[in-house]
């Protein structure tokens, strides 16, 4: 009796149960990898924080959530597909930003650079050029 009832439940199971979200990966440019390495040495607490926040964004994407639904305070759009991840949980921190391009077409989060508030405009301009390159190579 129990098995029959469960079979009814399983037959009518919603699509969500079998839904497999896309397998997102994370990619880093050579330049960004060097910047992360440098930032870890200069600002270890801030870098640990932005790296952890990157991991949180990545886990959300991996669980099938869409970018448009993200309402995290540390996650901001800079336009043209570029997003900025800031730090949290670091009192008296020096503002550190990680720039990413979550590309839904390839299910890849491209990590494009890391920097501080002073270099923000330069970093954003450079990151957007890289996004154009990535899109142009498809």
């Amino acid at each position: 009796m129990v098995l029959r009832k469960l079979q009814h439940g399983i037959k009518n199971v919603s699509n969500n149960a079998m839904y497999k979200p896309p397998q997102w990966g994370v990619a880093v440019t050579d330049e960004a990898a060097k910047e992360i390495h440098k930032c870890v040495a200069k600002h270890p607490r801030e870098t640990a924080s932005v790296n952890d926040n990157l991991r949180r964004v990545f886990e959300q994407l991996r669980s099938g959530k869409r970018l448009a639904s993200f309402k995290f305070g540390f996650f901001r759009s800079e336009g043209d597909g570029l997003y900025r991840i800031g730090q949290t949980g670091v009192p008296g921190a020096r503002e550190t930003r990680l720039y990413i391009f979550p590309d839904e077409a390839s299910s890849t989060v491209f990590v494009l650079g890391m920097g501080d508030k002073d270099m923000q405009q330069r970093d954003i301009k450079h990151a957007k050029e890289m996004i154009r390159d990535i899109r142009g190579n498809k």
Partner: protein
Amino acid sequence: MNTKRYDTVDALVLDAAGKEAVDAMNQHAEETRVIHALVSIRNDKGRSQRQQAKEMGYSPSKLCRIEAGRDADLTLGEIEAYARALGLSVHLSFDDASLPAAAQIKRHVFLIKERLDGLAELAAKQNDDSKLVKKIHEFYGEVLINFAMRFGDSYQKIPPVITVGAEPAKPATPAPYAEKRLAAATR
């Protein structure tokens, strides 16, 4: 532009900056676990920071400071206010880390059964709402499938048991009835 792809952020950070950087990242996660859990629920419910602040009766900047802070700076009152504004209740439980993993898993299984029993009671109370009962049936099916998938996924990670030099298992002595059927089948 050269890029290198990884399956996880941990692998990327390890490669770019070494094990210490990964440890520091995990340390940060540990220090902001409660805040992140609350923010994730707010996010899942599609609520913005501004809306959450309004529900709590806080200024947006105060809420921003809380969400950008550390667990150690949170008060129990702030946790309760945040949870209440999301329609959640707060339950405190204390995990005994000295308990073996199996005992901890059993505890969680019993908790899940309690919740499922609550859902079954809700279904039993429905007189006219067969739609709700149907949805609960479907949900039970989903729980079973999702659990089975995750159980299987985890089980795959256990190394196989390899026994060296064991005696081959002796065939079981068939029951008398089975013996007769076997004899009939092989005639």
